[in-house]
């Protein structure tokens, strides 16, 4: 398989070994159950699954926002202990600081880490231009549309130049057209950078369009049900969604998810 023989994949960027996550409380919830997952360096991995299957929990563990109840989470071979700028996160609702302008949000990480202006200014301007927000330099987040906010959310992670991008349903709250624009933007940015991406989504089209590999999760307790390599040529565009290979992949993944959703309903009844 051509996609699996790439040289970048010889070492893994992310390794989850027998990871279980139980959220405590009056009714403990087993969000992840014995998950094993490897994502190669430079790979764009999408994770899809029925809602509540623990997709975001995987991302939060890799980001270091949460700790596994048991098991091992490693990034570049090192155990994850805390969040850090080597793993940039794009949140669903952008999570911009409302008191900072577009520009100040974009350079937040550089300033927080005490980098001199000369180190980040040029780079930040380029990335802001790359996401098409040069003219909105001084705007506050409240003055931006949902799509524009998410562009800032992406620009600020680009400025960090991280090893790893973690995206938690970043386009989930956007309207259809904006969503397509953002997917095309992400495709072209990724073609330039080729960094490791973990992209959480419940949109199967989006997963196939963007990713090199799609992990399908089972319903709660979350497990990795299957790993589907996407061997569609790059550079890709949104036109791809009518391609027969695309449609075949989509049918395959849909069937798996539908089966899972059905399992949840029967388990609930």
């Amino acid at each position, binding site marked *: 398989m051509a996609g699996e023989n790439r040289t970048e994949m010889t070492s893994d960027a992310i390794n989850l070994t027998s990871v279980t996550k139980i959220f405590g409380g009056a009714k403990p919830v087993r969000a992840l159950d014995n998950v094993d997952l490897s994502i190669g360096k430079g790979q764009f991995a999408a994770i899809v699954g029925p809602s509540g299957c623990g997709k975001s929990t995987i991302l939060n563990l890799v980001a270091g926002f949460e700790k596994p109840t048991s098991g091992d989470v490693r990034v570049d071979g090192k155990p994850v202990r805390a969040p*850090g700028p080597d793993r940039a*996160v794009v949140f669903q609702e952008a999570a911009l600081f409302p008191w900072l302008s577009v520009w100040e949000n974009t350079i937040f990480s550089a300033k927080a880490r005490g980098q001199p202006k000369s180190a980040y200014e040029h780079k930040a301007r380029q990335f802001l231009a790359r996401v098409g927000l040069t003219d909105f330099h001084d705007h506050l987040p409240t003055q931006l549309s949902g799509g524009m906010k998410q562009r800032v959310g992406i620009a600020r992670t680009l400025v*960090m130049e991280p090893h790893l991008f973690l995206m938690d349903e970043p386009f989930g709250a956007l309207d259809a057209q904006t969503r397509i624009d953002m997917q095309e933007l992400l495709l072209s940015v990724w073609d330039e950078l080729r960094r490791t991406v973990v992209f959480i989504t419940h949109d199967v089209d989006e997963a196939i369009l963007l990713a090199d590999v799609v992990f399908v999760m089972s319903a709660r307790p979350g497990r990795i049900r299957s790993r589907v390599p996407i061997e569609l040529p790059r550079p890709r565009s949104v036109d791809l969604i009518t391609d027969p290979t695309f449609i075949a992949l989509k049918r395959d993944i849909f069937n798996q998810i539908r089966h899972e959703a059905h399992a949840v309903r029967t388990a609930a009844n």
Partner: protein
Amino acid sequence: MTAANGAVEIERGAAARFGTRFGGSALVVLVPLALLCLWEAAGAAGLLPTGLIPTPTMVIRAWYVWTFGPDTGGFNAYSGTWTQVVANSAQRVVLGYALAVLLAVPIGILVGWSNLVAKLVDPTLQSLRPIPITAWLPFSIALFGIKDYGAIFLICLGAFYPILINATHGARSLDQNLHRAALMMGASSRTILFRVVLPNALPAIFAGMRIGAGIAWSAVIVAELVAVKSGLGYVLWDAYYIGRMDVVVADMASIGMFGFLTDCLLIALQRRLVRWQNVA
């Protein structure tokens, strides 16, 4: 059809805007003006107890003499002293209030942000909170005597709690994702405290500061009624004793005016500092 309807809509809109701009401000002053006229008329008709309740014109005359002096006929201890009296009270309010802000904002933020600080100081702060500032008066006089410090202490104490509680609430209301965003961008605890928690708490801090400012003006009057021998509160009581009800009412109006001005000042400051939120 649509165009015509649209035009009608626009005209109605313009009329409504005209109404709010001119008719609106007329409406705002209508009731107070009517009340003043009624009050004046009642005085002219001899319906007010003579020497006890002054008419608006009497109050304005007294206020004028109090501000600009000199008195016309007889001895007037208040003639031309208004500015000094106001300065005395305002100075206490500014000092006590500034002290309250300087103490309450950092303590409130830390209590809201750090469980350790909350455990250490919150029980003490909360157990003292139900004691009203009026109950602190004798204690304050015993501690500071009949001096400015007593008034400043009471003002500070009164303004402290609303600012503290709102700052604490503001620090605790930080969105989890904003905190996580700061962490993943490599921000240190110190950076998060100053660049994330503090700005996030600013709207709440201002809400507390506005309540605190109102309490500060109440506190200065209470303190001056009892514990200090100058200022608007002192004159209020003093003028009452010598039967100068016109000065009493002018004094009340002055207090109200400064309370209002303080609030306007805080709103203007909030508009500048909290640009990302619409300030009511």
